[in-house]
């Protein structure tokens, strides 16, 4: 097969599937910008449009009149041929409306409406709080544990390490019930601790740091020890500055993980003021199941922060996932 033809087939296939991957997002945003009645009438698919009644003004050929129904008042816009508003009248003569035209119109107010409908502000704040505290926790515990596993000698070190690793293979739904019972016993259900403390340890991150610490040359540690550096000094002055890429990777996993975590907070908390974003969104899904446009608006703003993070650091994020996958 000719090379040029092959390449164009590849690009075509990739573009078609790329479109398939992205269409749900495009549709989400365009639906979020429609009015509910427009969505229910199922008239436009991707570009939100509203019906305008066009009245051709016989004397001025370039100008058309648009009548817009806003509830019980009808507003008439006198437009030039580019569609810019030249004049505006209220209470237009409806009898002279002759044609119907569809014009794109975006209802940005849906976002505000959805945001105000349930306390999404609190949900965002909770999610940020939980995400950042657990991120700090994960970094501290992982570096300490990884240092011990990588650089210290103690009885049962490898045994404990492999015990940890094997626990990583246990999926969340399996330990969900027992964790619930445990948190119930220590009266932590329905508290911030329940959302934060169990996620302050991440075995995979320990594993990442341990592999990295092991790869650093022994001379570094010897030199530091000779210069009178203690264990914490070594960790603080040598390990951390040398671990920036791992810290970035671990932070990405931790932030994306806690931003998107759903089952755990759903089960462990009940009070509305403790709801994190995903849980709040799922309740909104039940309460506003018929208000499609608002649901789409809420879905949009709940994924925007993580998408911003993704677009800002996409190379790093994709590389982190790829590397982490290969390390297993």
């Amino acid at each position, binding site marked *: 097969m000719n090379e040029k033809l092959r390449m164009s087939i590849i690009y075509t296939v990739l573009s078609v*599937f790329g479109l398939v991957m*992205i269409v*749900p997002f495009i549709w989400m945003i365009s639906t979020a910008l429609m009015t509910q009645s427009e969505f229910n009438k199922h008239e436009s698919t991707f570009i939100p449009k509203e019906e305008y009644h066009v009245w051709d003004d016989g004397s001025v050929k370039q100008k058309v009149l648009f009548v817009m129904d806003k509830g019980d008042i009808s507003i008439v816009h006198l437009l030039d041929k580019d569609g810019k508003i030249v004049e505006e009248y209220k209470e237009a003569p409806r009898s002279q409306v002759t044609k119907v035209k569809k014009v794109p119109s975006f209802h940005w107010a849906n976002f505000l409406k959805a945001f105000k409908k349930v306390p999404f502000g609190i949900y965002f704040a909770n999610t940020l709080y939980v995400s950042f505290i657990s991120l700090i926790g994960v970094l501290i515990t992982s570096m300490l544990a990884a240092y011990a596993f990588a650089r210290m000698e103690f009885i049962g070190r490898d045994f404990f390490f492999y015990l940890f690793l094997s626990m990583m293979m246990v999926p969340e739904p399996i330990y969900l019930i027992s964790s*619930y019972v445990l948190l119930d016993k220590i009266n932590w259900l329905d508290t911030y601790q329940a959302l934060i403390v169990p996620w302050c340890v991440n075995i995979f991150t320990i594993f990442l740091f341990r592999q990295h610490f092991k790869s650093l040359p022994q001379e570094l540690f010897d030199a530091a020890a000779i210069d009178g550096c203690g264990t914490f000094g070594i960790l603080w002055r040598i390990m951390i500055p040398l671990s920036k890429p791992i810290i970035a990777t671990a932070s990405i996993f931790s932030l994306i993980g806690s931003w998107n975590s759903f089952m755990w907070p759903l089960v462990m908390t009940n009070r509305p003021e403790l709801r994190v974003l995903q849980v709040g969104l799922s309740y909104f899904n039940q309460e506003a199941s018929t208000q499609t446009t608002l649901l789409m608006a809420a879905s949009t703003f709940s994924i925007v922060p993580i998408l911003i993070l993704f677009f800002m650091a996409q190379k790093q994020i994709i590389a982190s996932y790829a590397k982490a*996958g290969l390390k297993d």
Partner: protein
Amino acid sequence: MLKDEVFWQSMTNTFWLVIIVVPASIVFSLLFAVMLNQIKRLKGLFRTVYFMPFVTSLVAVSIVWKIMFNEQTGLMNTMIGWVGIEPQKWLSEARGIFDIFFSGFGITLPKWAGGPSQALFAIIIMTVWKGLGYNTIIYLAGLQNISKVYYEAAEIDGASKLKQFFRITLPLVSPTTFYVLIMTTIVSFQAFAQIYLMTDKGGPLNTTKLIVYYIYEKGFDTMDMGYASAVALALFILILGLTVLQKRLEKHVNY
């Protein structure tokens, strides 16, 4: 538990999901990765687009897909309408997909051969879409580890691109395939949020009730913690068994 019909039904549903999601994911992501590996321009853009569903929250995309599968106003029925397929009921259809397919030709299948319900099939489509980007990235990394020397040698020997794919790429990327196989299997067994958000408690007629949703329902709706733990343990043994089995298999196939 072993006499509980709903337990067995959710097990069957979960098996259908895993059995379709895993191969579909592997085939599509390998295809994408092989194509991405051959292009230079726009590579980053495609990678980003494919990866986007993976980083977004399952809750938000479940809501979007639920509305996409809506019978009257959903995008799915609009799009299949463009190619002349009549509107489907998707998430509210309890009939099996094989049943629906063959009834189109006037053949009535026996009940056991109906396959997963169309509702579950809708969940399957969404689940494949969500995880595809991750697997593609993993495959892409795996492909980049294959030395160019093999392809150059094959080129000199006059092997076609298709032959190169089956004789070089596929065998040499098999460690990645095993990783993707194991990870996708484990993750698919855990599907929960889709069911919680897109269906009415695993309906219609329990045809989308998956095992983890059943654990949740038993444990936190009917508050039967003991029973839920038993189901969780069964799931654990199953996942562990499958992982061990796949690892064993890996040793036989690896190059």
